C-alpha cells in the first residue's frame, strides 16, 4: 500500500514540474471525455432506460390512420365519434387514456395567463401514476359524461401562479367560463410523457368532458381532429400485432357504416396501429444520437492521438530517470507501475473535469434542448455515467502507459547512462509520428467534412426563400374571457380593435387573417367538374392579406371587402393546389369545388406557393376569407417601430372587458422558434467542427514541433550552408506532404465506407454541395497542416543561424 502511495507521490512530484503537460492532458481528455459521457448518458436514457412509469413496457400509443382509395395515408388522426367508440368498446387494453391538447386563458387569475391545458380521461392517472404533492388524481368521479369541473395543476403551475400556496386545494380556476375546483397538484418529480410534442409541458389537467370539441362534431365521422391522442396499457399476454388487427376490424366496420352514402369516402378505410410509448417518445432522435456519438468519439480519438504524442515525447525526456531506476534494480514491472501512476493520476484529474463538463452539458441540454431532444429532464450523472467514466478513464490510462512502456527498450536503458545522452537513437520512431499525423488528418477531415454537411443542410433550410415577408409583421389573436358574447357584438368589437390598431402611428396596416406561420388543419374538398378529391390545408385570410405579406397573386383576383361582408362563397388556391387540377394554372380560376356541406365555392384566384420555416416543400393550400367576427389580426409595423403587448391589451380593454389578448408575437420570432432545431443543428455542428479544428491543429503542431526539434541541427546545418528560410519551410512541408495526403486518402476511404454502410440514411446528403464542402474541408485541413509545419520552424529560421546550431 505504502509503495503505491509512494509511487503516486513521486509521480505528482515529477508532474508538478511540467504544468503545461498536465494542462494539455487534463483539458483535452477532460473536455472530450466529458462530451462523450454526456452523449452516452443521453443515449442510455433514451435507448435503454425504462420510462418512469409503472409497467412501462406495456404502454402503447394507439393511432388511427385514414387510408384513401389509392391506399395512401390521408391522415393519422382520430375523428371524435370514432375515438369515443374506441374508448368504450375496446378490450385489449386494461387502462386507456384519451388526451386532448389545448391552450386557454385562465381568466380567474389576475395575470390572465395562457396555459397549456390537457383534457384527459381518468385512465390517464392510472397509466402514469404521477406522484402528487397534495390532493388526488382524477378517478371515476371524472369519468366521461360526469361533467365534474375539477383540475389538477402541474408543479410548475402551482409554483408560478400560486406561489406554492398550501391552501391551493381550496381554490378554483376559471377557464372558458367554467370554474374548475383544484383537486390535486403533481410532484416536481413527475415526468410528463412527451407524446404530443418534444418538450411540451401541460400546466393544467382537466377532465375530458370539458374539451373544446363543439357538439356538432360529436357525430362528425367525416373529419379528423388534430391534437387528440390515445394511450393504453396492453393486457398481459396480448401481442401488439394481433391487437392492431382486431382494433382495425372493429374501428373500420363502425366507420364504414357511419360514412356509408358519403361518396367522398368510397374505397377508403381505417387502419389502427399501436407503437410502444418508449419508441414513440424516442421518435427519430436515434439518428441524431448516433451522429452525436460518432462526432464525439471522433473528437476523443483526435485528443487521444494528441496526448499519445505528448506521452511519447515525455517518455523520451524521462529516459535518464528511468535508466537510473533500472540501474538500481527496478524491474520492468516497476517501471510500468511508475508510468501507470503518472498516467492514472493525470487521467483522474481529467475524469473530474469530464464529470464537470458532463454536468454542464446536462444543464445546457435541459435549458436549451428540451424542445428538440426528448427525456432530457431525466438526465443526471448516474451510475451509468460513473461506471462509463471510470472504464473510459482506466482504458485511456492503461493505453497511454502501455504506449510509453513499449517505447522503453529495457536493455537499452542501461546504455542511455553510458552514452551520456548525446547522439542516442532513443526517440519517437518516425513511423509512429507518421501514423499519428495520418490519423489526425484522417479523423479531422472526416469530422470537419461531416459537420460542414450538417451545417450546410441546416443553413439551406434556414435560408430557404419563404415566398412571403415576415419582417415587421406581428400576429395577434384575441379570445373571449367573460360570458360567451353574441356574434353580433363580437364582430363590432373585433372591427373596432382593428380600426384602433390601424390608427396607431407605428402601424402601417392591419389584416384580419390567421398567421401565415400557423399550421392549420387539412380539409377534404371535391372539384365539382372532375370530382377530383384534394385535401389542402385551409387558411383564413382577408382582402389585405396578400399585399401585407407580399405574397404574389398569379392569376385572377384576391378577396374583396364585399366578399367578406356578404360571405360570398369564393376561395383562393395556391400554385401547388392548382397544379393538381390542371397543368395550365390559369384554367383553375373559375372552377368550382365543395367541402361536402352543400355550398359550392368558386376559385377566384391562384396565389404563389410559400414555404414554412423549417420545411423545404410547399403545402397544397386553399384560402377562405375570414369572417367579420374573426379574432386573428396580422399587423404591419413601420420599420424599426414596436407595438408593445400592453399597448395592444390596453386598446382592447378600452373597447370591451369581455376579451383579452391571447397571443401576440412578431412573425420573425415565431420563425426563429420554428427554425430552432435547424439552428441547434447548425450551432452544434459548427462548434464540433471548431473544436475538431482546434484539437487537430494542436495535435499536428505537437507532432511536427517534436519532429522539428529532433531535426534542429540538421536544419541549422542546411542554413549554414546557405539554405534560405523559404527553402527550409519548403523542406519541412515537402517531407510531410505524403503523410498528409495519406491522411486525406484514409478519410476518403472512411467516408466512402460509411456511405456504403449507411447509404439509405446518407443519400439525403449527396449533391453538388459536396464538391464545395470537400474543397473547403481540404483547404482548411491543408491550412492547419501548413501552419503546423511552419510554426515550429519559425523560431529557427527567423534568427541568426548560430542560435539553431548551438546546443
Amino acid at each position, binding site marked *: 500500500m505504502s509503495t503505491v502511495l509512494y509511487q503516486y507521490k513521486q509521480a505528482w512530484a515529477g508532474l508538478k514540474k511540467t504544468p503545461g503537460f498536465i494542462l494539455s492532458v487534463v483539458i483535452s481528455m477532460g473536455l472530450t471525455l466529458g462530451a462523450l459521457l454526456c452523449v452516452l448518458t443521453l443515449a442510455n436514457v433514451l435507448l435503454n432506460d425504462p420510462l418512469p412509469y409503472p409497467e412501462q413496457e406495456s404502454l402503447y400509443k394507439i393511432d388511427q390512420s385514414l387510408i384513401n382509395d389509392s391506399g395512401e395515408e390521408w391522415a393519422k388522426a382520430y375523428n371524435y365519434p370514432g375515438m369515443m367508440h374506441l374508448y368504450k368498446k375496446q378490450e385489449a387494453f386494461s387502462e386507456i387514456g384519451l388526451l386532448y391538447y389545448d391552450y386557454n386563458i385562465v381568466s380567474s387569475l389576475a395575470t390572465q395567463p395562457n396555459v397549456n391545458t390537457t383534457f384527459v380521461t381518468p385512465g390517464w392517472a392510472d397509466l402514469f401514476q404521477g406522484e402528487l404533492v397534495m390532493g388526488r388524481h382524477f378517478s371515476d368521479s371524472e369519468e366521461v359524461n360526469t361533467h365534474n369541473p375539477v383540475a389538477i395543476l402541474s408543479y410548475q403551475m402551482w409554483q408560478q401562479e400560486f406561489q406554492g400556496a398550501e391552501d391551493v386545494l381550496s381554490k378554483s380556476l376559471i377557464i372558458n367560463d367554467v370554474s374548475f375546483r383544484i383537486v390535486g397538484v403533481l410532484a416536481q418529480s413527475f415526468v410528463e410523457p412527451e407524446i404530443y410534442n418534444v418538450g411540451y409541458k401541460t400546466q393544467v389537467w382537466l377532465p375530458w368532458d370539458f374539451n373544446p370539441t363543439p357538439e356538432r362534431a360529436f357525430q362528425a365521422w367525416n373529419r379528423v381532429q388534430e391534437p387528440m391522442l390515445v394511450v393504453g396499457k396492453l393486457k398481459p399476454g396480448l401481442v401488439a400485432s394481433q391487437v392492431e388487427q382486431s382494433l382495425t376490424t372493429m374501428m373500420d366496420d363502425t366507420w364504414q357504416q357511419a360514412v356509408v352514402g358519403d361518396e367522398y369516402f368510397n374505397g377508403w378505410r381505417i387502419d389502427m396501429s399501436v407503437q410502444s410509448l418508449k419508441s414513440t417518445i424516442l421518435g427519430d432522435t436515434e439518428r441524431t444520437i448516433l451522429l452525436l456519438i460518432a462526432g464525439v468519439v471522433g473528437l476523443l480519438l483526435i485528443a487521444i492521438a494528441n496526448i499519445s504524442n505528448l506521452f511519447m515525447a515525455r517518455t523520451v525526456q524521462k529516459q535518464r530517470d528511468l535508466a537510473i531506476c533500472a540501474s538500481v534494480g527496478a524491474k520492468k514491472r516497476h517501471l510500468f507501475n511508475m508510468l501507470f501512476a503518472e498516467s492514472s493520476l493525470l487521467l483522474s484529474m481529467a475524469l473530474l473535469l469530464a464529470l464537470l463538463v458532463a454536468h454542464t452539458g446536462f444543464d445546457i441540454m435541459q435549458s436549451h434542448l428540451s424542445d428538440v431532444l426528448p427525456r432530457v429532464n431525466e438526465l443526471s450523472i448516474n451510475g451509468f455515467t460513473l461506471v462509463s467514466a471510470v472504464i473510459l478513464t482506466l482504458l485511456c490510462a492503461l493505453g497511454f502507459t502501455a504506449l510509453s512502456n513499449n517505447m522503453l527498450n529495457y536493455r537499452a536503458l542501461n546504455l542511455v547512462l553510458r552514452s551520456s545522452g548525446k547522439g542516442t537513437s532513443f526517440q519517437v520512431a518516425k513511423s509512429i509520428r507518421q501514423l499519428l499525423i495520418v490519423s489526425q488528418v484522417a479523423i479531422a477531415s472526416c469530422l470537419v467534412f461531416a459537420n460542414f454537411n450538417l451545417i450546410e443542410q441546416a443553413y439551406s433550410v434556414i435560408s430557404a426563400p419563404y415566398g412571403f415577408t415576415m419582417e415587421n409583421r406581428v400576429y395577434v389573436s384575441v379570445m373571449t374571457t367573460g360570458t360567451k358574447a353574441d356574434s353580433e357584438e363580437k364582430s363590432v368589437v373585433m372591427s373596432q380593435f382593428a380600426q384602433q390598431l390601424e390608427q396607431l402611428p407605428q402601424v402601417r396596416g392591419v389584416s384580419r387573417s390567421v398567421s401565415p406561420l400557423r399550421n392549420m388543419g387539412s380539409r377534404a374538398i371535391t372539384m365539382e367538374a372532375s370530382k377530383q378529391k384534394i385535401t389542402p390545408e385551409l387558411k383564413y385570410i382577408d382582402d389585405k392579406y396578400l399585399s401585407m405579406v407580399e405574397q404574389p397573386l398569379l392569376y385572377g383576383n384576391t378577396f374583396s371587402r364585399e366578399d367578406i361582408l356578404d360571405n360570398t362563397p369564393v376561395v383562393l388556391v395556391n400554385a401547388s393546389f392548382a397544379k393538381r387540377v390542371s397543368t395550365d394554372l390559369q384554367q383553375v380560376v373559375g372552377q368550382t369545388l365543395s367541402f361536402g356541406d352543400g355550398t359550392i365555392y368558386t376559385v377566384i384566384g391562384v396565389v404563389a406557393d410559400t414555404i414554412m420555416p423549417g420545411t423545404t416543400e410547399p403545402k397544397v393550400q386553399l384560402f377562405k376569407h375570414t369572417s367579420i367576427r374573426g379574432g386573428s389580426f396580422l399587423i404591419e409595423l413601420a420599420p424599426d417601430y414596436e407595438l408593445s403587448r400592453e399597448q395592444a391589451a390596453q386598446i382592447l380593454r378600452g373597447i370591451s372587458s369581455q376579451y383579452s389578448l391571447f397571443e401576440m408575437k412578431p412573425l420573425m420570432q415565431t420563425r426563429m422558434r420554428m427554425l430552432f432545431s435547424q439552428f441547434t443543428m447548425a450551432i452544434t455542428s459548427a462548434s464540433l467542427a471548431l473544436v475538431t479544428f482546434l484539437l487537430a491543429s494542436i495535435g499536428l503542431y505537437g507532432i511536427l514541433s517534436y519532429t522539428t526539434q529532433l531535426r534542429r541541427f*540538421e536544419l541549422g546545418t542546411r542554413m549554414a550552408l546557405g539554405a*534560405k528560410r523559404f527553402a527550409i519551410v519548403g523542406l519541412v512541408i515537402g517531407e510531410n506532404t505524403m503523410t498528409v495526403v495519406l491522411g486525406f486518402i484514409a478519410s476518403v476511404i472512411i467516408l466512402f465506407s460509411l456511405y456504403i454502410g449507411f447509404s439509405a440514411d446518407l443519400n439525403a446528403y449527396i449533391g453538388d454541395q459536396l464538391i464545395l464542402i470537400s474543397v473547403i474541408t481540404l483547404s482548411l485541413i491543408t491550412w492547419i497542416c501548413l501552419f503546423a509545419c511552419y510554426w515550429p520552424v519559425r523560431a529557427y529560421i527567423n534568427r541568426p*543561424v548560430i542560435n539553431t546550431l548551438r546546443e
Partner: protein
Amino acid sequence: MDSIIKLSQLSKVFETEELQTHALKDINLTINKGDYVSISGPSGCGKSTLLSILGLLDMPTSGQYFVEGRDVSQLSLDEAAEVRNEKIGFIFQSFNLIDELSVFDNVALPLRYHREKQSDEAMKERVTWCLEQVGMTHRASHKPNQLSGGQQQRVAIARALVADPALLLVDEPTGNLDSKSGDMVMDVLERLNKNGTTLCMVTHDPRYADMARTQLKLSDGVIFNPANMTQQKVAV
C-alpha cells in the same frame, strides 16, 4: 594584395538577464586572398563568436564587416544565406553531416541552395572533383554514419569546397578526432591552401596553429598579433 575579409571596429555583446558579455571588442582584421590564418586563445575568449560572425551565422553588435569589399554587417537573413552559400565554406568541429543523405548528396547540398542551378552533370563533376581533393571518391554512396570520424571530416571539407568559396572557415577541425586522423585532415587543409584556397581556422592545438601563415591570438575578445601591435594600440 586583394583583401577578402575586412573587419573594422567590430564588437559583439551578448545580453542575458543577469549580465552583458563583451565577447568581441573593437576587432580590426584583414584576411587576404590565399592567406592561412589561425586563431587561438583560451577557452571563452571569443574564437567561436568571431568565426560565426565571419561566417554570417551571427550578427555583430557594432562595427563593419566587408566580404570582397561589400558591407555585409547588416544583411537580412536571406541575403546572408546567399553570401554564405557563395562565398564561405564551413568546416565544423562536429562535422555536421546529415545522416539521411549519402556522402555525395551531403557534398552536393550547397549547390542545391545555390542561386544559379547547375545541370546534374556539372554538379556530379564538381562533387566528384571535391571528393577527389579529400580522397573520398570511393565512399560517395555511403551514409555518413558508415564512416570514421576522420573520413567524415574530410567529407565535410569537400562539402565546404563545393561551391568554390572565397574563404574556408574551420572551427577546431580536429577536436573530435584522434591525432592520426587529425593530421590527415590538416594535411588536406594545407594542400588546399597551397592550391590557392583562403583559410581561417580556430584551433587549440599549437602544433596546428603553427602551420598557419598568420597566427592571431585572441584574449578576452581582443586580438593580439605581434605583427600588428601598433594597430591594436590604436584600437584600444
